[in-house]
């Protein structure tokens, strides 16, 4: 099992609940889409899976160990197997793309290798290959602040490709991309996950893409799991209930979803 969550709750610093009694089992190599209105707790759930913060209630294990019962160093070693790609990847503006991408190798590198790579990129070909899969190979030696928002987002994804993680936790990877690029990006993520037998948990705003590409859909609302079902079992009503009275932008996409229950398969 990649992740096992039993009754997991997470509270913010201001004591408000971000997650409530979440039960979730995700097997190694599974590909799961997280959907739900803004503020439903998708990002918090991904951060919990990435061991970024301990759950305030319940049991959580990743790769069959309970990270928060491990010593600090062992937990940190575990984090190297999990890759969290935040929605807007925070990259130092004056860093070069090649360095930003190769930072995905940091957990495997010794300090010496890391420093050497700052002076002369350690594995530029790997970075080039990763960028090429997102059509960004021309930007290999450009500076991060010369990239557009969408390019920066894909640069963060290229970092995911060079990492050696066994689970990809990706937060809204398509928020700054146009539809064609969205599709290509999602394809690339899924191909990579399949090729390494890595688990992929991806939060998405675009319901139709989630239903079209992911075999398993988890709906989150108000910090609780609203449904957790195979794609075929997700009905129009379930989606409508999930987004009822929530933000308009998400609801606008619903008709598309409903019209094509058998969405074109992704890779």
């Amino acid at each position, binding site marked *: 099992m990649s992740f096992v969550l039993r009754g997991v709750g997470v509270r913010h610093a201001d004591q408000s609940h971000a997650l409530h009694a979440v039960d979730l089992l995700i097997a190694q190599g599974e590909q799961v889409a997280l959907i739900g209105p803004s503020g439903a707790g998708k990002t918090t759930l991904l951060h919990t899976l990435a061991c970024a913060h301990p759950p305030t209630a319940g049991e959580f294990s990743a790769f069959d160990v309970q990270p928060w019962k491990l010593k600090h160093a062992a937990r*940190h070693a575990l984090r190297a197997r999990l890759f969290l790609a935040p929605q807007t990847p*925070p990259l*130092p*503006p004056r860093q070069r793309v090649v360095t930003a991408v190769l930072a995905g190798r940091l957990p495997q590198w010794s300090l010496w290798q890391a420093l050497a790579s700052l002076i002369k990129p350690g594995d530029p070909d790997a970075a080039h290959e990763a960028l090429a899969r997102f059509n960004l190979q021309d930007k290999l030696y450009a500076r991060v602040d010369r990239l557009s928002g969408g390019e920066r987002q894909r640069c963060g994804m290229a970092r995911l490709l060079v990492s050696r993680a066994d689970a990809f936790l990706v937060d809204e990877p398509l928020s700054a991309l146009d539809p064609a690029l969205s599709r290509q990006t999602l394809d690339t993520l899924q191909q990579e996950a399949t090729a390494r037998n890595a688990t992929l948990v991806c939060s998405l705003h675009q319901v139709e893409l989630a239903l079209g590409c992911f075999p398993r859909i988890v709906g989150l609302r108000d910090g609780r799991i609203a449904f957790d079902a195979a794609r075929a079992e997700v009905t129009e009503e379930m989606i409508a209930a999930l987004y009822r009275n929530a933000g308009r932008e998400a609801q606008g996409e619903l008709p598309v979803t409903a019209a094509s229950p058998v969405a074109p398969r992704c890779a």
Partner: protein
Amino acid sequence: MRRPVPPPIIQPATLALLLGLLALICASFYTLDLKWGELFTADAARSSLEFLQGFAPPEAAAPFLLRIVAGAMETLSMSALGTGIAFVIGLALAVPASGRLGGSARAVVRLALNVLRSIPELVWAVILLIAAGLGPFAGTLALAVHTTGVLGRLFADALENLPPACESTLRINGASALGAFFYAALPQISPQLMSYTLYRWENNIRAAAVLGVVGAGGLGQMLKYHLSLFQMQQAASVIIAMLLMIVVVDGVSFRLRRRLTGN
């Protein structure tokens, strides 16, 4: 012509403060026992004039000018090396001083940096002369020690004010603390590091020019030497060289800073 009336509306507290300042100024003049007589009598004016006339014309013989160039080189080297050493040590000390190694380390290192900073280069030079002996090496060390205090604190502030997202993303993905520091924190503050360091270097060139007055090398040492032998023409050349160096450095640094920290 109408006499201007001072602007009205002064709060009593501010007025008291201003009166206090005035009292401080009066007390300063009163207690200092200033010898204006030495300056404003006809006799004094004549001797001052003679003193100033001694400067003209500045010594311009080629061998002497070569020595001045060597002195200027020495001054520049002292300032560059001192600033370079301070950059490295200041950066190393900025890490604990920014609270990354805990609150008590932060307090201790910040106190140390404050002490280094509040003692000027010249005083450090006088103290370091004992350990390093007369000459530019003591001056270099003195500049390094004082500048470490200044830069260490500026760097620590820059690190503290940094948005943490870049670094925490790498940490969450399993990078070591040092790895994340070098790949996220450092590149983010590097423009600030550069501009602070260049600014201090500019300051240090000026400081290095005068450090020699206490025997710590550079143009200052030449100035002190020739003045104490009453070789006024040589002293005048050294002063002109100092002025030139300071003006040139001002211009170059202004341009360089604008280019390096632009965009």
